[in-house]
């Protein structure tokens, strides 16, 4: 394996971006495992890719639109019945900015 490609601190930063809280043990383990993967995928650095366009999608279709007419929708009560907390026909969550409700 070559130089280290991702540090423990970068790994912790990525976890925070992804809203994941890792234990010290997980952070150690994941840093090593991510580094090993990034080292493997570095093989593509040898390729000359400058002139190639990126592929987002294997099919040559884009912006497929349907007529703007109302169709079937899901039943609100049935959907809300699956939520951890619902109230007054809405999803209920803790304070978004941290202050008391």
């Amino acid at each position, binding site marked *: 394996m070559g130089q280290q490609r991702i540090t423990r601190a970068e790994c912790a930063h*990525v976890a925070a971006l992804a809203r994941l809280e890792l234990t010290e043990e997980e952070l150690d383990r994941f840093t090593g495992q991510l580094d090993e993967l990034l080292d493997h995928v570095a093989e593509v650095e040898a390729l000359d890719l400058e002139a190639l366009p*990126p592929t987002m999608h294997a099919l040559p279709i884009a912006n497929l639109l349907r007529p703007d007419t109302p169709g079937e929708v899901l039943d609100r009560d049935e959907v809300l019945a699956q939520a951890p907390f619902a109230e007054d026909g809405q999803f209920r969550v803790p304070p978004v900015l941290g202050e008391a409700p």
Partner: protein
Amino acid sequence: MTAVEIAAAVRSGQRSARSVVDEHLDVIAGGDADIHAFNLVAAAQARARADEIDGAVASGRDPGPLAGVPVALKDNLCTRGLATTCSSRILEGWAPPYDATVVEQLHNAGAVVVGKTNMDEFAMGSSTENSGFGPTCNPCDTSRVPGGSSGGSAAAVAAGFAPVALGSDTGGSIRQPAALCGVVGVKPTYGLVSRYGLVAFASSLDQIGPFTTTVADAAAVLDVISGPDARDSTSISEPQPPVSHTLADGVDGLRVGVLAELSGNGIAPDVAAQLQAAVRALESAGASVAEASAPAAVYGLSAYYLIAPAEASSNLARYDGVRYGLRVDGPSTPDMNTATRSAGFGDEVKRRIMIGTYALSAGYYDAYYGKAQKVRTLIINDFASVWEQFDLLVSPTSPTTAFPLGERTADPMAMYMSDVCTVPVNLTGQAAMSVPYGVGDDGLPVGVQIMAPALGEPVMFRAAAVLEASL
């Protein structure tokens, strides 16, 4: 009995759907404790549905081409009112308010859903050991993995729990477990089967397909589930000809390439020997066979393990404890989101979300994700050249036969290498399938992968039928 035989017997009134379903539920009850193919067996619902089908037959109505056929569904396919977990603690107990399009299509064709099958959590894995509910065992040898991520579906068909199962294939998750369990598995052309109601992993790669014991059964199921769907903007808008009608057309005159990049380095000798036997069978049936080369295919794994996690990190952002599944509370919504995701996701899902988040993050996007998308173009271009010279390509489906449970769980890179033969076709969007072809030195099944250009399913199935008949 095969699915085609069951449907014929039920449609003609020779056999009741109820007796077929009861028989399979008995086999499940007697055997699944040792295999753990199912997360959930829907016995009462299946019996009620079978009775409906028998009622239709009794009143002179045709229940459809899959009348009375028991079907097992991978647990990432939404079933209205029936728990759909993706084998993740984060979705435990969630019952979708709608059916996936494929579930509706199977229902309308007379099939009977018998249960939801185990899988690697959110389809991330190659052994079904990453399930939040424990691993599935390979019915051919219960000390081995069934492959993954659709390991429960492959095992259900191999164990005789159901003649048909559906899975999803993002990087080989239908073909590799089909090979390891000794059954037929199909990854259709991207867009041929609607993804509506398939819980998204990597949306530009995911495709639904069948597991069966015979090629004809796979064709019959594919004909039911393929077709345009207004609810999936990536579904191909023109209906395609059925594949069932051309199965007997043979391979005389077809040009078959053995794809060098997927058939040499790293392939176990006993697996390579079975591929050679398959090649001889195709030659005997009149195909011309030569070596084919798509040099960029060797970079498939590298491109895949950036693109798929990148898409997954975005798709899995929705599991935040607000609308469904698990919630672990916290003083604020962001705290609640983090607590829920940290408790609800397993290790492999966390790893992939982190790889994807990193590959998409500021400063690394061009170096990793942008580059992987260009490698994808390179692979597509190489395959396009190959299709100028060949009608079909073959390779092994998996570099080895089924490996022991626990062998690769501590080493993610070793697990990722299991997908080396299958990922290129997901990147290109082409059709591919695995056909069982004999056994390796350990007596375990070997699968041969047949690859076809986009919408090349009819030709692909002709070759599969020839291989099946040559055994």
